[in-house]
C-alpha cells in the first residue's frame, strides 16, 4: 500500500476569502482557487486554470450546488463551464476536468494540501 504524503501550506486567513465565493492563492508557480462555501460551512480548492480556454480565472467564478444531492460546483466567469468541487469533473461536458486540492481550516487559518 502506497501512502501519499500531503504537505500542507498556509494559504491565507479564513476572513480573507469572501463568503460563498473564491479567491486565488499563489503557491510557488501554481495558481490555486480557494472557495469559502460559508453557507455549507465547507471549503474547497481547485486549480485556477479553466481548461476550456486556458484562462486563470476560476477563483472569480460563482459557486453553488446542483441536483438532488446538492453537489457543490463552480462556474467559470468566462463561458460558465461548471465543475464539481468534489470530483473536478466538468458537469456539462465530458472532456474537461480540473485538479482538486484538499483544504483544512484551523484557528481561522486556511491550509491547502499539496501531494
Amino acid at each position, binding site marked *: 500500500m502506497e501512502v501519499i504524503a500531503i504537505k500542507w501550506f498556509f*494559504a*491565507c486567513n479564513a476572513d*480573507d*476569502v*469572501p*463568503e*460563498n*465565493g*473564491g*479567491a*486565488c*492563492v*499563489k503557491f510557488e508557480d501554481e*495558481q490555486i482557487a*480557494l472557495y469559502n*462555501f460559508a*453557507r*455549507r460551512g465547507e471549503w474547497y480548492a481547485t486549480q485556477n486554470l479553466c481548461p476550456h*480556454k*486556458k*484562462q*486563470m*480565472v476560476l477563483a*472569480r*467564478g*460563482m*459557486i*453553488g*450546488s*446542483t*441536483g438532488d444531492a*446538492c453537489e*457543490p*460546483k463552480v*462556474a467559470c*466567469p*468566462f463561458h*460558465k463551464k*461548471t465543475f464539481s468541487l468534489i470530483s473536478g469533473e466538468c458537469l456539462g461536458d465530458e472532456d474537461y476536468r480540473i485538479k482538486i486540492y484538499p483544504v483544512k481550516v484551523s484557528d481561522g487559518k486556511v491550509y491547502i494540501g499539496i501531494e
Partner: protein
Amino acid sequence: MAFEKRTVVVIGNGMVGYKFCEKLLAKSKNFNIIVFGEESRPAYDRVHLSEYFNGKTADDLSLSTKEWYQENGIKLYLGDPVQEIDRENKLVHSLHGIRRRYDYLVLATGSSAFVPDIPGVEKDGVFVYRTIEDLELIKSYAAKSRSAAVMGGGLLGLEAAKALLDLGLPETHIIEFAPRLMPRQVDSMASLLLQSKLKKLGLQMHLNKSTTQIHGAEKIETLQFGDNTSLRLDMLVISAGIRPRDELAKLCRLEVGTRGGIVVNEQLQTNDPDIFAIGECALYNGMIYGLVAPGYEMAEVVASYLCDVQKSFTGFDMSTKLKLIGVDVASFGDPFINEPDCHTIVVEDTNKGIYKRVNISKDGKYLLGGILIGDADNYNMLLQTVNNKLVLPPDPEDIIFGSRNGANEGAGVMSLPEDALICSCEAVTKGAICSAVKEESCTTIDGIKKCTKAGTGCGGCVPMVKDLIGGTMKEQGMYVQNTVCEHFDYSRQELLDLIKINKVKDYDEVLDQFGKGDGCEVCKPVVASILASLWNDVILKQDTIQDSNDRFLANIQKGGSYSVVPRIPGGEITPDKLIALGTIAKKYGLYTKITGGQRIDMFGAHVNDLPFIWEELIDEGFESGHAYGKALRTVKSCVGSTWCRFGLHDSVSFAIEVEDRYKGIRAPHKIKGGVSGCIRECAEAQSKDFGIIATEKGWNLFVCGNGGSKPQHALLLATDIDKETCIKYLDRFLMFYIKTADPLTRTATWLNKMEGGITYLKNVVVNDSLGIGEQLEAEMKGLVNTYKCEWKEAVNDQEFRKRFNHFVNAPKAKDPSLQFEEMRGQIKAKEW
C-alpha cells in the same frame, strides 16, 4: 382541352368577404377570383373597431394587404361597388364601369347601421358606428364636443360608448328603447348590475326611452323622447341595429326577406343556384347572423361547395363573451330559459359586482345556458359544457363558483372530447390544436395561431388554447416552467414580488425563504439584479452573487484583464476631460477605443489596478459608466439645435438629463437610449430600448427597439409630448419592464412576448389602465433619489479595495499569465 379556371366574383371586401377568399384559396387554385369592395381600404377587423381610439391604427386593424391579393392572383377593386347584377348573362357592372363575367357570384355585402326614421337625424353631429371613416368623423367632431350619446344599448352600442369614453368626452350617455341593456344577451338582473358598473365609470343610462325628435339649428342640440323629457347633446352616435345590404339582390330579383336579408338555403345559395350570400346580408331560417364567427362558417360552407365538398350551415351558436370597459359580460346557450322548463342557479354578489346565472336541465344532467357579469373566467369551460353536452357533476354549482385556478381549469380543458370546438370563429377543434402541439411543435400561442388559425378571430379562446398547450405538453412529458432555475420554483416576476413584499435584502435569506439548495450561477445574478432594482444598495456588499462583470465592476476580457468605461452622459465631453482620460490611459498602459455608445473604453487593466485607475477618474470628475452591468448604458444624442441647422430642439441637453436620471439603475438586461433632434435621426434612437425624437411640437417617444443579433425597431408610444410627460412615461415604462420581464430579456423580446403587444403597453404606460402609474413613478423616484456611484463607494472603502487583487496571499503581485501583444501602437490581449 385546356382546363379553364372558373370565375368567382365576390361582392364585398369586409371580414367575411375576405375570409371567403382566404378559404377558397386554401382549398383550390382552380378559381379566378375577383373582388369588388365599396370601402377604399382592404378588409379590416371591424370587431375590434373600438380599439381605433385606443392606440391601434387602421393598419393594425387590417386583415391583409393589397399585396396579399396580388400575390394570390385575386383582382381587387377597392372603392368601386357593384351597381348591377345581370343574372341572365352572368355579368356584374361596377360604379367605375368595370364589367366582369362570373361563373359563381358570392354576395358578402354585409349590413349598414340602421338609422331610425327620426326627424332631425340628418343634422350635423349625428353619426353611425360602422367603418373606420365613421370613426374618423366621430373623432374629429368629438374634439369640439362636451356631451355625446349613443343610441342603442346593445352589444355594439356599448362598444361605441366605450369608444366615446376613450375619446375623453366629459359627458357620455346611453339611450335604449328596451327596459334593459343588451336585451338579447342578458336578463334584467344582469342588466341592473351592468348599469351600476357603467354608472361608476361615468356613463349615464336612459332606458325605456324612445327618441321622437332631434332638435337643433343645423347641428344637434337636444334629443326629445316619447315621454316628453329631453337631453342636451353635442353629438349622437347611432348604434341601434343593423340592416342587411340587400339592394343589389332586390334589383336583380333575388328572393329577400320581408324585413330585409337575402334568403339562402343550407348551402347559402339564393334562389339562383349560381349566386350565394354570406355574412350579415344573408337571411337563413328567418335569422340574420350579426357576429363574425357564423359569417366565417358560411364562407367555409360556400368555399367547400365550390370545391365539391358538401357542408351545411344549420344555424350558429350566438354565445358571446366580451370585456366592456373592464367589465366581463358573457352570454351562452339559452340564457333566458326559465322555470318550469329548467332549473336556474343564480349568484348575485353586489359587494364584488358579480352576477352569474346558469340554466340546467330539469334532470340536472345538462347545462342549457347562462349569463355571467363581472367574472367570466369560466365562460370557455361553461360554453364547452353546453355545446358538447357534457354531463354535469352532482354539485353543478361548483362549476359556477369555481374560479379559474390553474390546475382545475387545465384539467377541465383536457377532458373535452377531441372534436370539441375551441375556436368558433375559425372552427378549430381541440384535436386540431393538440396535434399542432404534438406533431408540429407549436408550443406558443403565436405558433398555434400560425398553424391552426385558432385565436386569430375574436381572441376569446386564447386562455383555453393556452391551457391546451400546457396540458398537452405535460401529457407528452414536455412540461415547461417559466421558473428561474432548479433552486427557485418561481418566475422572475414572482420572485421580485416576493422579495419586495417580504423586504428581503440578502441573497442567502432569499434562498432560505423562497428557494432550496445552495444557489448557482443562474439564480445568483437574477436575485442580485432584483435586489439592486428594489433596494439600490451598493452591489459590492454582496460581491459573490454578482455575475462575471459586476463582480469587479468591470468587463472581464480575454486573458483576465478588465476594461474601464467612465460615464460620458449624452456623449458630450470637455477638452480637459478628454485630456484626463488620455493621461490616465497612458499612465496605466491601457488600450483606448471609442464605443458605439458615444464614450471611451480603456482595456488591459489588471484587476489590482482597477481601484487606482478609478480613484484617478473620480478625482477628475468621472463616474462609473456601468458598461459591465445589466443596467442603463448610454443615452446617445445627435448634435441638436445648439449647433445643427436642422435641429428642432436641444437633443444633447435632453439626452444628458435622461442619462443622469437613470444612471445606476439595474434591469433584467441592459438598457440603451437615444435622443435625436429631428426626423433625420442621427442618434439612431429608433433602434434603442427607448428613443426620443424631436417634433415641431415636442417629442415623440419610441420604445422596445434594439440592435444586436436580432435588430428590431422601436415602436411609437406617444407623440408630441413635452419633456415632463416624456420622463413620466419613461419612469413608468422602465419600472414596468424591471418588474415584469424575464431574466436576460431585452425590452424588444419582452414586448414580443407581451399579450396585447404595444397596444397593451401603451394602455398601461400612457392611459394607466392598470392604475399602477403612480406606484411605478414613486418606485422609480426611489431609485433615482438613492443613486450612488458604486466606483466612488468602492474606491473610498478599504474593505472593498482589498478584494481587487489577483492573489489573496500576494496582493501586490500581478497575474503572470496575463500578457499583451502590440498592434497599431497599442496593446492587445494575447490570443487564447
